[in-house]
């Protein structure tokens, strides 16, 4: 049993805004759970909320959600790992998502992924060891007319090339140093 869970189990008189886990971010998860009346079909929505709040899904969080919804842990783990968008590691300081949809593929998205990956030594789908950058690929962002598309720290950038993306990432990483 994790520490988080133990404290939840032991909490009897909770104070407003003072979450028994000691981490008030769980309040936001609780709020969602309550609004969904703890219905088990709310699992995916709840995991979304938890990931929004915490940035990623740690084992503690998964256990917390499983207990709240009274679901077997293996089922929660199975659901969380089935879907691409759930992540189990803390994200890097910057995030670079390269769209690899068909239109972007036809226009060279693969090369962009490869050059960012090689230049900054971060495999696609992973975070660099120094935690500076997370490199992701997306199935299709639906902005095919702007292909190839890269999303850097939330900004959608159109008609990218390997050079433009690499230098953009470099500027952001360099700026932090």
């Amino acid at each position: 049993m994790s520490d988080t869970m133990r404290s939840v189990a032991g909490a009897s008189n909770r104070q407003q805004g003072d979450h028994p886990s000691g981490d008030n971010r769980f309040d936001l998860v609780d709020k969602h759970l309550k609004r969904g009346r703890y219905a088990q079909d709310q699992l995916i929505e709840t995991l979304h909320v938890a990931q929004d709040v915490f940035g990623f899904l740690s084992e503690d969080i998964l256990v917390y959600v499983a207990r709240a919804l009274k679901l077997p842990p293996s089922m929660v783990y199975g659901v969380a790992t089935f879907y691409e968008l759930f992540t189990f590691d803390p994200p890097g300081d910057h995030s670079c998502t390269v769209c690899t949809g068909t239109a972007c593929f036809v226009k060279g998205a693969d090369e962009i992924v490869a050059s960012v990956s090689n230049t900054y030594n971060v495999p696609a789908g992973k975070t660099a060891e120094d935690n500076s950058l997370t490199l992701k690929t997306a199935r299709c962002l639906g902005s095919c007319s702007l292909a190839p598309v890269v999303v850097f720290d939330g900004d959608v950038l159109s008609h990218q090339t390997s050079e433009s993306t690499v230098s953009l990432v470099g500027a952001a990483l360099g700026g932090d140093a």
Partner: protein
Amino acid sequence: MAAPIDLHEVTEREREERFRTRWRVKACASTACQSAGAGQTIKAIEDAVEAEDMMLEVQVIPTGCMGLCSAGPLVRVLRRGGDKAMYQKVTPETGIKILKSHVLDEETLPEHEIDTEIPFFSSQERVVLANGGVINPDRIESYVAHGGYLALEKALKTMKPKHVLEEIRTSGLRGRGGAGYPTASKWSLLAAAPGETKYIVANGDEGDPGAYMDRTIMEDDPHRLLEGIALAAYATGANQAYIYVRAEYPRAIERLDRAIRVARRNRLLGRKILDTKFDLSVEVRIGAGAFVCGEETALLASIEGRRGIPRLRPPYPTEKGLWGEPTMINNVETLANIAPIINNGGEWFASLGTPKSTGTKVFALAGDITHTGLIEVPMGTKLRDIVEDIGGGVPDGKGFKAAQTGGPSGGCIPAKFLDTPVDYDSLRELGSIMGSGGLIIMNEEVRMPDVAKYFMEFSMDESCGKCTPCRAGTVQMHNLLQRITDGDGTKQDIRDLEHLCSVVRDASLCGLGQAAPNPVMSTLQYFRSEYSALLREEVAHG
């Protein structure tokens, strides 16, 4: 309980508002134009209107997608009772210039103007996208003023459910999600299903790379979808509906959530809709990144909060769906066609398109083509007309090689079939499928075995893993394609690949696996020489 919305009064009020100012500036605020900087452009124009004290002269209206996404940000300027002009690549500075030029000098700004007579605009037939670039998606009044919810009112007050269904049958509408199953047949299955509890699900899990028509509908015309859902529910006796949206579409989720709230407040959803006995509750459910959830039974599993794994059919969802109750799943674009059919009649709809594929189809035109964007054409339009006229042909003097339809479940159509009419049956005969409407043009430089490998990697990554042929077969097909594209393949590899294509196609459990070989089979059929050219010289053994 508040009184329901008075559609006619709202329409009247909106008409007055429309004619209040001499000028209306409509700026596309859809996702593609936003990415190109529409947000700043709109803000700049709004600020300029205020700074120049033009508030009584000009109203600025953010709208949904105008279609020609590659030329964004797009802006239209409309003069009361008269001229219209459309502008492309409108930066904040250009936006201010356009504004001043029209309002102060009564002149257009030719260097940024787009000719709206070009085939890209003139050859389209907009039914589903009729409101694109016209209404403000955030205001229900704007939708109502353009005939919104009249179909629902008409149905609830003057038609029996079976008459609504009959109208859909007359229209010949087929599912826009890919397979083209007749919509009315699905509806009548749900209508005939026993029991009190029935569900309707709008499938907005638009996973085909290259397709974004459903997102555009959900973002730019959410009430059209809600109205379609309400009509479907009325016709089939369902009282609960879910809209399943990809998590990759946060804006669509936000817009739909708001639209549902507003519609409920106006008594267009919820209890006693428009003061009739019809109740309908609609909820948005969010995916989490799994292509297979576009498959009906996987989608249902996902709504129930489980792994998105398809299950065996029968029983079909219309017999046993969500939580074991009869459930009908319709694609978003399908549902977006319902209100116009009820308004204009099934016969009107059937007069569009071809006898077997009626109506229009929205395509997302992308890849190696001059005009990329969202287009809507009558079914049966020749591929050549779409590529050469509407799309403006392949740019940079390069030749056309293939058109890819149907994404990872579809195929590549070579130049010799450019005169094929685009409809469900013709595409299937060519070894492709309509799919959800992604249409990617490839020029002569694209290597087709690479394309096949690209799609196989997609299917391999997206396979749910339940059935052996799809889980392990796509892996082996990808492995063979990797070897072939690396120049290390043999004739035996091609034979093994073709055999696996039939195993995976015939023995897989769901549509994802059954269709996964399509890109390989169609490229082998039409571009076999490209595969042969990649094979290595075989060492002569014994």
